[in-house]
């Protein structure tokens, strides 16, 4: 796959505020790409520079081989779904969807048909005559989507499109967006602060912190082999244990767990200096009566229990580790929920450990 969008050394300053710090990024044609990060990390600014709604301070943006310097938003092959949806309140649904077709050379009836098709695609067939202000949040969102997709842009930019919806609606729209993206084959760039949303929807994710890309990878790599503690903490939960590498770097001594071979650990590159070891809560398991650990085992005491219905999260104290380890357990049939203070045997597996800097 070729790069549809190429960003090189993109910088953005707002007065003293340095919003984007040397962003280098390639986004492929037909990809569902997400910019994920906490609020204020610059992800929306980055999206707006691609849309042409924001000028870059330095660096270059190329879309489909064309340099976008000095190209205004109305001349870019991108369309945007705004966080507020920005549905025109003085127009009907059909007028909203057909807003960008004014210069389209097609005849009136053909345009009307295109509008109807676009509405059908987002599940709003027959809504054309309604006034936009009478729509619900979810419907406005669909209007905004249809309005952008009808122009067949090379890139569809989505700025936190689901954040204003309730949870059920959001999950439904996530799946629908994936379906739409596969159907139209347009490159989608999604900005979100919701790591779960990014994991569910994206082909690749760029995790951003303070105007920089912390890590760029597919969802599974990002989850299994985060490059830094920060990325690991932002995506899912993770326990961190201090570790000491042996002189030949072949072994690592992990606090509380003991020695393991470095080769067994997942890592995203060479690590110098201080190291930590990360363990996801679901890769640890509390062993109940009669169960044995398939590989490794360590003794601990339950210090906290948080019951989630389908899951229970335990904090387990282990000698030699200053912070308790968080363990998540599925509440399977016949499996009791332990009390605080109970002794617990923990099963762990060196193949689920991640070697991290710091």
């Amino acid at each position, binding site marked *: 796959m070729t790069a549809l969008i190429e960003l090189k050394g993109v910088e953005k300053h707002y007065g003293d505020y340095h919003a984007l710090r040397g962003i280098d990024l390639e986004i492929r044609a037909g990809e569902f790409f997400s910019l994920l990060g906490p609020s204020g990390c610059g992800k929306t600014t980055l999206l707006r520079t691609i*849309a*042409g*709604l924001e000028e870059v301070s330095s660096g270059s943006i190329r879309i489909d081989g064309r340099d976008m310097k000095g190209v*205004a*938003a*109305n001349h870019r092959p*991108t*369309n*945007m779904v*705004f*966080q*507020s949806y*920005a549905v*025109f*309140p*003085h*127009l009907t649904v059909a007028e909203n969807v057909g*807003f*960008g077709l*004014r*210069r389209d050379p097609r005849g009136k009836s053909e345009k009307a048909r295109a509008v109807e098709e676009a509405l059908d695609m987002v599940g709003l067939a027959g809504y054309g005559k309604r*006034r*936009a*202000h*009478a729509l619900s949040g979810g419907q406005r969102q669909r209007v*905004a989507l249809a*309005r*952008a997709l009808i*122009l067949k842009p090379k890139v569809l930019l989505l700025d936190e499109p689901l954040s204003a919806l309730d949870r059920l609606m959001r999950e439904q729209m996530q799946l629908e967006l994936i379906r739409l993206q596969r159907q139209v084959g347009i490159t989608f760039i999604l900005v979100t602060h919701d790591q779960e949303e990014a994991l569910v929807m994206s082909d690749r994710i760029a995790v951003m912190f303070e105007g920089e890309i912390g890590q760029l990878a597919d969802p599974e790599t990002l989850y299994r082999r985060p490059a830094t503690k920060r990325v690991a903490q932002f995506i899912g939960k993770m326990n961190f244990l201090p570790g000491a590498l042996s002189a030949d770097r072949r072994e690592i001594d992990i606090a509380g767990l003991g020695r393991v071979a470095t080769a067994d650990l997942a890592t995203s590159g060479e690590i110098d200096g201080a190291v930590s070891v990360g363990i996801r809560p679901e890769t640890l398991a509390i062993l109940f009566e009669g169960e044995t650990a398939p590989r490794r085992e360590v003794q601990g005491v339950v210090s906290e229990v948080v019951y989630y219905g389908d899951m229970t999260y335990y904090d387990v104290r282990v000698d030699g580790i200053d912070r308790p380890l968080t363990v998540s357990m599925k509440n399977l049939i016949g499996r009791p929920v332990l009390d605080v203070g109970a002794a617990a045997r923990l099963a762990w597996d060196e193949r689920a450990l991640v070697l991290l800097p710091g």
Partner: protein
Amino acid sequence: MGLGSFAKSEGGRAATLLAPPFLYALALLALPILAVVLFSFWTQDFMTIDTRFTLANYREFFDKPIYGVLLGRSLMVSGIVTLVTVLLAYPVAYFLSFHVPSHRKSLWLFLITIPFWTSYLIRVFLWKVILGYNGVINSGLVGAGIIDEPLSFILYNVNAVIITLAHAFAPFAILPIFVALEKIDRSLIEASRDLGETRLTTFFRVTLPLSMPGLVAAVLIVFIPTIGDYVTPELMGGAGGKLIANMIQTQFLQLNNAPMGAAIAMVAMVCVTAIALVFVALNRRWLRGRG
């Protein structure tokens, strides 16, 4: 229900709060208007008023062309003043809303109210000084050698009335338009640009329609008071620039014919009401699109 509980109930509290302004309005607005209505159906019989019901005054209004001419001129002057004022006010309001940084906006609004610091009368006289035969404009143009003798079409005629009124009402027009522009979600404008429109076409397709309620409010605020304005045509209009309000004043105070003056006032009021209702209906149409 005792009086105590009435005073405590919601309706009772509202009534208590509303009573003083209501009585005030009744005494100073409703009763005088009622008196004008009554007078318009009476006749002046030398020094006394003949209180028998008659339509004679209205008949005279429509029989003698002078009244129609004055009313027509008043409507035209108000119309032009409104047009000029709104056309001048819109760019100011637009600049204020879109280009002045938000922390400076209140300063700008404050500056716009400066003309109100001097009395209306003084501002009218100021225009006399500017537009007069030996005024700022004429002496300036003569001094510069552009014209040989002073221009006479800029004072004591309808033009002078229009210039003075348009200046006096500009701030009234700026504020409602500014408020309407402030309420426009800026992402709508970005969305229009994103969907392929230029700055100019975005203005006509998004900004202007969404600011329509403010525009209509500005039109009403300027049009209604200017049609009844008396001071400016009196001082600036000369013989040919007199408007309907001057005729009403003449009837009441110089010809001592209050019933005729009342009838003219009634006709003018009905005209203004009719035009205002058209604009209110327009505004309704525009406002329907807001959620």
